C-alpha cells in the first residue's frame, strides 16, 4: 500500500513540473518614471515610411520606453493616435515590384482610413507622446507654429499655443527630449539647396540649417521649462544625418559600362567631352574633366554650386576655338559649374528616379535631348546631391556635407552642455548611429543601415522601422540606466514588425 503513496507523489511532481526561474524586478534608481512625457519630432512621433500612421505611433520608441518604465513604477502612456494606417497627410510607402522586376518603395494603395485625421484632439489630452513630425528645435517656443504644421495643429489648444506650452500642460516626472535633427536634416535632404542661418534669424523655410545661436536659446528654454518642476530626463543628441540610407543608398558612380543603354554610348560621350576637357585643363581646373570609364562604373555628372562659375570663360574659350556662339554659350551654361561626383558626395534617395533620364524641364527650356540626360550629359541638380569637399585646381572647395556636420557638432555640443548643467542623462545617439554602420545583432538577427535590407530604416530612408525604433529605445534605456542607476529592461526588438515584402 505504501507504493500507491509513492505513485501519488510522483503524479503530483509530474503535474507541477515547471522551472521556478523568475525575472529580476526592475528598479527605477534615482529616476521617477511615474509620469513620462516624450518631447521630439517625427522620430518621437513614430513616423515611418514617409508619413505618420497609427501602427507606427503605437510602436513609437516612447511607447516602448513607457512599457519598460511600467516595470519600475511607470504609469499610463497616452498617445495622440491617428484613426488609420494609410498615412497622413501623405500616404505611406510600401514595397512594390517595378515593371523591371526590382523592389522599391511605392505609394500605399490599400484601405483608405484617413478620415478624421486632421481633427484637433487637444480635448482628449494631455498626451505623453507629444512628438511633432517636422518640428525643429527653433520652432518649439514659436507661437503660431501650429498654423504651418498639421501635426502640431492636431495637438494644440489654439493655433497660437507653442509646442512647449502644449507639451507641459501636464507636468511630468520624467522627460525624453529628442529635438534638433530637423534643424539640419531639412538642409541635408534638400541636397543643401538652403543656407546656413546665423544670429537670431528665424527662417520659415525648412531647408536651412538653423542658427546655432537661436538653437542654443530655444534648447535652453525648452529644457529649463521642463526641469522647473524638478523633473528629470534624458536628452538625446542628433545623429550625423549623412549616415542614413537616404544619403547612402544611391552610389556616386552608378553608371555601368555593362548597361546596354549606357555602355555603347561611352565612346561617343567621351569624344564629345574631349573638347570640353581641354578647356578645363586650359582654365586650370583639370579635376573637372568629364570622362566615362569604358569598363566598370563611372561617376555621375553633378552640379556643384560651391565651384567657381566658369560659364563665361568657357564660352569665350569655346568661341575662340571656333564653336558657333549659341553652342558655346549653351556649353558654358551647362558645364560651367559642374564636375563628376566623387566618393565624398552623397546622392539623395529621390535622385534614383531621375538619374540617366531626360530632364524634361531642361528640354522645355531648349537644351537638346542628348545634352539633357540627368547625371550623364546634364549635371544632376543641386537638390539631388549633398556635396563633399572637392579639390578644384588650386582651391579646396568645402562642400555641403561639411556644413551639415559642423552644425550637427555645434548642436550636439549645446545638448551635451545642457545635460551636464541639469544633471540629466545624455543619450549619444550620434555615436550609437555611427556604431550601427558596422551592423549589430539582437538574438540572432543581424541589423544594418543599408536601405530595406538592413532592417533598421523604413522605406523613406530617414525614419526607423518599428524594429529600428526598438533598437533606438534600447540605446536610450542603456543611457538612462547608466545615468540614473536604474535597471530598466531592454525591449524585445524581435517582437516588432519589419518591412513587408511583396
Amino acid at each position, binding site marked *: 500500500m505504501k*507504493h500507491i503513496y*509513492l*505513485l501519488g507523489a*510522483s503524479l503530483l*511532481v*509530474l503535474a507541477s*513540473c*515547471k*522551472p*521556478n*526561474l*523568475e*525575472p*529580476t*524586478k*526592475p*528598479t527605477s534608481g534615482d529616476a521617477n518614471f511615474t509620469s513620462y512625457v516624450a518631447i521630439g519630432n517625427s522620430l518621437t512621433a513614430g513616423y515611418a515610411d514617409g508619413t505618420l500612421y497609427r501602427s507606427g505611433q503605437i510602436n513609437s520608441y516612447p511607447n516602448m520606453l513607457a512599457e*519598460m518604465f511600467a*516595470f519600475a513604477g511607470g504609469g499610463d502612456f497616452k498617445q495622440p493616435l491617428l484613426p488609420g494606417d494609410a498615412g497622413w497627410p501623405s500616404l505611406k510607402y510600401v*514595397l512594390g*515590384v517595378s515593371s523591371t522586376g526590382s*523592389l522599391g518603395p511605392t505609394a500605399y494603395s490599400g484601405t483608405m482610413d484617413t478620415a478624421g485625421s486632421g481633427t484637433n484632439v487637444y480635448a482628449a489630452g494631455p498626451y505623453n507622446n507629444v512628438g511633432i513630425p517636422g518640428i525643429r528645435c527653433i520652432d518649439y517656443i514659436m507661437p503660431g507654429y501650429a498654423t504651418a504644421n498639421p501635426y502640431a495643429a492636431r495637438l494644440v489648444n489654439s493655433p497660437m499655443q507653442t509646442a512647449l506650452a502644449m507639451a507641459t500642460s501636464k507636468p511630468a516626472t520624467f522627460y525624453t527630449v529628442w529635438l534638433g535633427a530637423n534643424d539640419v536634416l531639412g538642409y541635408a535632404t534638400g541636397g543643401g539647396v538652403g543656407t546656413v542661418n546665423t544670429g537670431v534669424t528665424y527662417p520659415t523655410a525648412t531647408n536651412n540649417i538653423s542658427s546655432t545661436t537661436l538653437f542654443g536659446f530655444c534648447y535652453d528654454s525648452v529644457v529649463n521649462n521642463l526641469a522647473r518642476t524638478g523633473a528629470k530626463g534624458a536628452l538625446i543628441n542628433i545623429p550625423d544625418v549623412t549616415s542614413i540610407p537616404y544619403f547612402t543608398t544611391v552610389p556616386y558612380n552608378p553608371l555601368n559600362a555593362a548597361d546596354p543603354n549606357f555602355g555603347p554610348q561611352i565612346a561617343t560621350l567621351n569624344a564629345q567631352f574631349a573638347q570640353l576637357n581641354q578647356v578645363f585643363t586650359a582654365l586650370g581646373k583639370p579635376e573637372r574633366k568629364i570622362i566615362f570609364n569604358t569598363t566598370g562604373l563611372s561617376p555621375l555628372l553633378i552640379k556643384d554650386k560651391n565651384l567657381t562659375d566658369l560659364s563665361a570663360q568657357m564660352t569665350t574659350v569655346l568661341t575662340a576655338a571656333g564653336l558657333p556662339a549659341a553652342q558655346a554659350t549653351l556649353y558654358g551654361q551647362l558645364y560651367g559649374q559642374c564636375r563628376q561626383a566623387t566618393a565624398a558626395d552623397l546622392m539623395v534617395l529621390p535622385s534614383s528616379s531621375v538619374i540617366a533620364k531626360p530632364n524634361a524641364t531642361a528640354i522645355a527650356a531648349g537644351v537638346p535631348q542628348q545634352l539633357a540626360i540627368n547625371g550623364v550629359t546634364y549635371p544632376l541638380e543641386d537638390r539631388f546631391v549633398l556635396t563633399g569637399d572637392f579639390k578644384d585646381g588650386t582651391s579646396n572647395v568645402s562642400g555641403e556635407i561639411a556644413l551639415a556636420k559642423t552644425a550637427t557638432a555645434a548642436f550636439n555640443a549645446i545638448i551635451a552642455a545642457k545635460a551636464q548643467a541639469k544633471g540629466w542623462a545624455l543619450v549619444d545617439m550620434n555615436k550609437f548611429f555611427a556604431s550601427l554602420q558596422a551592423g*549589430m*545583432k*539582437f*538574438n*540572432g*538577427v543581424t541589423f544594418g543601415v543599408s536601405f530595406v535590407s538592413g*532592417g533598421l530604416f523604413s522605406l523613406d530612408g530617414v525614419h526607423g522601422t518599428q524594429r529600428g525604433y526598438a533598437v533606438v529605445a534600447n540605446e536610450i534605456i542603456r543611457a538612462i540606466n547608466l545615468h540614473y542607476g536604474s*535597471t*530598466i*529592461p*531592454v*525591449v*524585445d*526588438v*524581435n*517582437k*516588432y*514588425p*519589419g*518591412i*513587408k*515584402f*511583396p
Partner: protein
Amino acid sequence: MKRKLSIITSLLLSSSVVFAGGFQVNMQGVRQVAMGGSSTALAYDIASIFYNPGALAKTAKGTQVYLSANGIFAKTTFVSTPTAGYTSQTDNPMSTPFNLYLSHKLNDKIALGFGVYTPFGSTVNWGNTNANSLRYLIEKIELRNINFQPTISYQVNDKVSIGAGLVYATGSVVLEKGIPLFDPNGKEGVGRLEGKANSIGFNMGVHAQLNDRLTLGVSYRSQVRFDITSGDATFTVPSSLAANFPTTTFSASLPMPQVASLGLGYKVNNKLTLQGEMNFVGWESYKSLDFTYAKTTTTLMNSTSARNWENVFIFRLGAHYQYNDRLELMAGIARDPSPVKDGYFSPETPDANRFLTTAGLVYKVSDKINLMASYYYTQTDQREVYNNADAVKGKIQTAAVAGGIGVSYKF
C-alpha cells in the same frame, strides 16, 4: 509475436526523445533509471545489452524479452537579463524514449542479445510566434536516434564476463527557424531543414564479481557520427524573395559522443545494494554545427556556429532494496553537468548543470513476468547564458519529469 511487433512499430513512430546533459538520453532501462541512471556494475536484467554488454552473460537466462518506455515532460524558461523585459518558454511535446531487448542464453558461457534503443535525442519547441524572441535562432528541433545492437556476451569464469555489440545507428533531424522577412500579411519567413543519416559503432563491457560484496563494471560505447549528406532545405519567404532562398539540399554532421563508464556495486546486506558510477561523455567532439547548402545565394549562405562543447563526468549513486520476494524498490541521485561552456548558449540545447532524483519499483508478477515503473525528476541550475556571436543574453532553467514503465518476460 505478431502483436508485440505492432507495439514496437507504434513506439517507433511516436518516438521523439529528449534529455540528459547535452542531448544524451539515459533512459534505457527501468531499474537503471530508478537508480539514478547507474547501471554498469549491477547485473539485474537484460537492459545490460545497452548499459554493459559484459553483464549480459550473467543476466540472460533462457530466452527473455524486455520492453520499456518513458514519457518525459520538460519545460525550459528563458528570461532576458540583467532585468527581464521578455521571456520565452518551451512548449515541448511529451517525448518517449523506449527500448526493446531480446536475449537468449546459448549455453553456460555464451549469451546472445539484440537491443533497440534511443540513446540520444532532443525535442525542443520554443514556438514560432513573436512572443519568442529566440525564434530566429531556433523555433523547433527534433533530433532522433534509434540504435540497433546485436550483442554477444561471454562468461570467462565464475567471476568475469565480457561482451560486445555492433551498433547500427539511425538518426534524423528536423529543424525550423524563423527568417526575419515578412510577407504583405505580416507573416514571417521560416526555414526548415530535414535530414537523415545512418552510421555504425560499437558497445562493449566487462563485468566482474570481485568478492561476495563487491561488483565492478566497465563499459564503453563508441562515438557515432551522423553525416547528413542530402537533407532537404525548404524556405517559406515572401514571393519576391523566393529566388534568394531556393529549395535545395544541405549537408551537416552531428556527433553522438563516446561514453565510458566505470561502476562499483556494494552489497550492504541481503536486502540492500548500493551502486556508484561515473560516466565520461566525450562531448568535446561537438565542435560546431555547420550547414552546407547545395545552392547558395547572397542571402542563403553556408553557416557555421561554434559549439565547442566540453567533455563531462557524470556521477551517479543508486540504491536497490529487495523488499520481499516479489517487490524491489529503487532510488538514486546523479549530478549531470552541462557540456555547454559559458558563452556558447544555443536555444536548440538549452543546457545547464542538473541534479536529478529518481525512484522506482519492480514487481514480480510470476516467475516469468516482471512489471517495472520508474520516475525521474530534475530541475537544472538557474544559469546565466550568453552567446556573443548571436547577441543573446539571459538566464535559463529547465525542469523535467519522466515516468517510465516496463515489462520483462522469461520464456
